């Protein structure tokens, strides 16, 4: 069965017609954050009550993807009023239905968080909070799969790659490699069999962007992968996703099945010679599998240990075939780029970092959740306007970007624009997009120790600098935090960090000293206080000495 453009429009029209008579639409967030606050029960209760009152002809209750402000879930969004409700419980259901058409329930209104919603620019997350992640028809009604049609029927593979190159899109997994270059390399590789892999092994503690995208808008990622497959000449795709994300896995599998049933995946997509199928592969809790060669080893069913590059996966990847590996967010950016053109995308962001970036805001900040801002937005705006500042009027201390591979950025750099280059300049990295905010009660040595413990236990053990070096650094940090540190420890730390950074095999080892190096650079006084005065300035560690009362 093949699908035509008319079929696509027909599906969209039927879906739109269904919404014709609907006067009020209640969007209930059913992403993992809100589900764990019982939003599923709220949704069922709303549906039951709507049916009981006989309102189903003009009121529609719809489960949608992440609305962003995870801090105050479960969240509801009322269309067309544009009202957000926070912390909705089952007991609020009848009051909400009573208020439809009248003034909103002020008790639940979360308009105080308005800057959070207004300051964002959504490209990757444009459908989050809008479409039902379990319905392909809903995605098509919002213009879904039209980009795939355009890429297959109106463009040559080279034109698609040119468009991606023009857009200036860079890999969203952290390293920021230009996506257009990667696609060109794979498309030029001489082999009949090629693979496309979507890296959804989001292992950074403190990052949940990929999970939210997969849970909220799985079809967008599938469409992006199919376009990539058409552009580079691959017929098979794999999505490598963490087993720790059961909901994302379930929605993804469901979405792939729907896409196959409709014919946007499978043989002769849109009546062309293009065949494409996608399989889901589960990760098994190894952080190093986010590294591309380790990820390939894991898909092949082996221990996830990286290998030296070159050869790069673009020439020698999965089972030795040319392989294109991109992050979830990178693929999610592809459909809008094809739809609106590369030039449109290149206008957003800064000179070298184009487009928007999704960040997961967490830690000591009022509005924890998922945000998307144009590249180049100052950190201060993210933390204080969108994030709503620090709770309990505490003082901001640092923001940690890039997870265990990134660094801590102190207050003096808060006005710095967020893009790949600026972050690298201050000793951190963009990473996949986790932003952890820390206040004066967080001890920076303790935080560095936390990340080093992570890298130590996640080191695959293949190369010595990473396996032994991370343990040594961890031991030094432990002795500093428990009050037995010596003054020689700081120069030792610096030497070790330098060694691990320059001699490790893969990105995990090479970037693992970043948290230590950046905290040594900006918070050296805290290290010295632990060593010389046996006190923890933040009051977080027990250094044995006289503990300063907070």
């Amino acid at each position: 069965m093949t699908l035509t453009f008319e079929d696509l429009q027909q599906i969209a029209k039927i879906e739109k017609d269904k919404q014709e008579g609907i006067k009020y639409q209640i969007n209930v967030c059913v992403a993992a954050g809100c589900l764990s606050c019982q939003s599923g029960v709220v949704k069922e209760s709303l549906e039951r009550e709507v049916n009981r009152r006989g309102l189903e002809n003009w009121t529609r209750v719809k489960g949608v993807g992440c609305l962003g402000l995870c801090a105050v879930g479960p969240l509801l969004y009322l269309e067309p009023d544009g009202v957000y409700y926070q912390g909705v419980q089952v007991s609020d259901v009848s009051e909400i239905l009573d208020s439809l058409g009248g003034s909103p329930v002020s008790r639940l209104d979360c308009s105080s968080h308005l800057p959070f919603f207004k300051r964002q620019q959504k490209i990757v997350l444009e459908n989050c909070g809008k479409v039902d992640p379990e319905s392909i028809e809903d995605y098509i009604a919002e213009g879904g799969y039209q980009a795939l049609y355009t890429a297959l029927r109106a463009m040559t593979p080279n034109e698609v790659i040119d468009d991606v190159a023009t857009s200036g899109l860079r890999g969203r997994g952290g390293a920021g490699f230009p996506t257009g270059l990667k696609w060109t390399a794979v498309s030029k590789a001489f082999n009949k069999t090629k693979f496309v892999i979507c890296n959804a092994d989001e292992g950074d503690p403190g990052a949940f962007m990929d999970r939210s995208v997969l849970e909220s808008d799985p079809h967008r990622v599938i469409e992006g992968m199919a376009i990539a497959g058409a552009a580079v000449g691959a017929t098979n795709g794999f999505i490598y996703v963490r087993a720790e994300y059961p909901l994302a896995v379930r929605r993804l599998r469901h979405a792939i099945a729907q896409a196959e049933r409709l014919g946007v995946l499978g043989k002769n997509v849109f009546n062309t010679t293009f065949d494409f199928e996608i399989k889901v592969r589960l990760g098994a809790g190894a952080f190093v599998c986010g590294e591309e060669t380790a990820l390939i080893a894991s898909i092949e069913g082996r221990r996830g240990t990286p290998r030296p590059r070159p050869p790069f996966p673009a020439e020698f990847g999965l089972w030795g075939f040319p392989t294109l590996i991109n992050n979830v967010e990178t693929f999610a950016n592809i459909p809008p780029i094809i739809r609106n053109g590369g030039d449109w995308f290149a206008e957003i962001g800064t000179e070298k970092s184009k487009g928007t970036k999704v960040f997961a805001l967490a830690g000591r900040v009022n509005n924890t959740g998922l945000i998307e801002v144009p590249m180049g937005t100052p950190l201060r705006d993210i933390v204080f306007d969108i994030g709503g500042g620090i709770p309990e009027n505490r003082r901001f201390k640092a923001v940690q970007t890039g997870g265990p591979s990134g660094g801590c950025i102190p207050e003096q750099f808060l006005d710095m624009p967020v893009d790949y280059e600026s972050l690298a300049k201050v000793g951190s990295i963009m990473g996949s997009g986790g932003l952890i905010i820390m206040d004066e009660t967080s001890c920076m040595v303790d935080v560095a120790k936390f990340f080093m413990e992570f890298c130590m236990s996640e080191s695959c053990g293949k190369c010595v600098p990473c396996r032994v070096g991370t343990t040594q650094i961890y031991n030094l940090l432990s002795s500093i935090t428990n009050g037995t540190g010596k003054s020689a420890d700081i120069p030792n730390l610096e030497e070790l960090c330098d060694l691990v950074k320059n001699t490790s095999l893969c990105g995990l080892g090479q970037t693992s000293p970043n948290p230590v190096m950046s905290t040594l650079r900006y918070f050296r006084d805290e290290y010295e206080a632990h060593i010389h005065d046996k006190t923890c300035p933040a009051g977080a560690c027990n250094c044995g000495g006289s503990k300063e009362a907070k």
Partner: protein
Amino acid sequence: MEAKVGAKTKEAQDTRWRFVNRTMRLHGNAPHALIETLHSVQEHFGFLDTDSLKYVANALHVPLSLVYGVATFYHYFTLKPPGDHTCVVCKGTACYIGGAATILNTFEDEFGIGPGETTSDGKISLVTARCLGSCGLAPAVVFDGEVKGRMKADEVLEKVRRWTENDTNV
């Protein structure tokens, strides 16, 4: 050898093997199905024992040493049977900043088990997760598959105590 039993006999021993065999069949019994198969075994049996490792090695034509290597490399796989109830404490960055360490310490004080251990009566297992991705709800704890956000140490203890009390009543 026990591991040499065919798929049919294995299914006769325990019907849960049918799901495992199905997973292997879907991947053409190829060696690269190893991780997917181990997921299937763990999903249906709760953990990976030596017998199942041998069976999978034999069915996929992979050396047992490789199967063991894979099973021990990945944190998600466990070779020990879990307790009746499992409490997962998230140790992601946001949860750490939010006080996950305090939860783990009080848990150890109360029940005498650290992360990755099970109480001697086999009732409660304590596990840590790298990151549940529920950072907006930090610190997050999962009680038998149910994610709870913004947990305090005493709330966690109370929930777990309720498990032990209920079980003694039964």
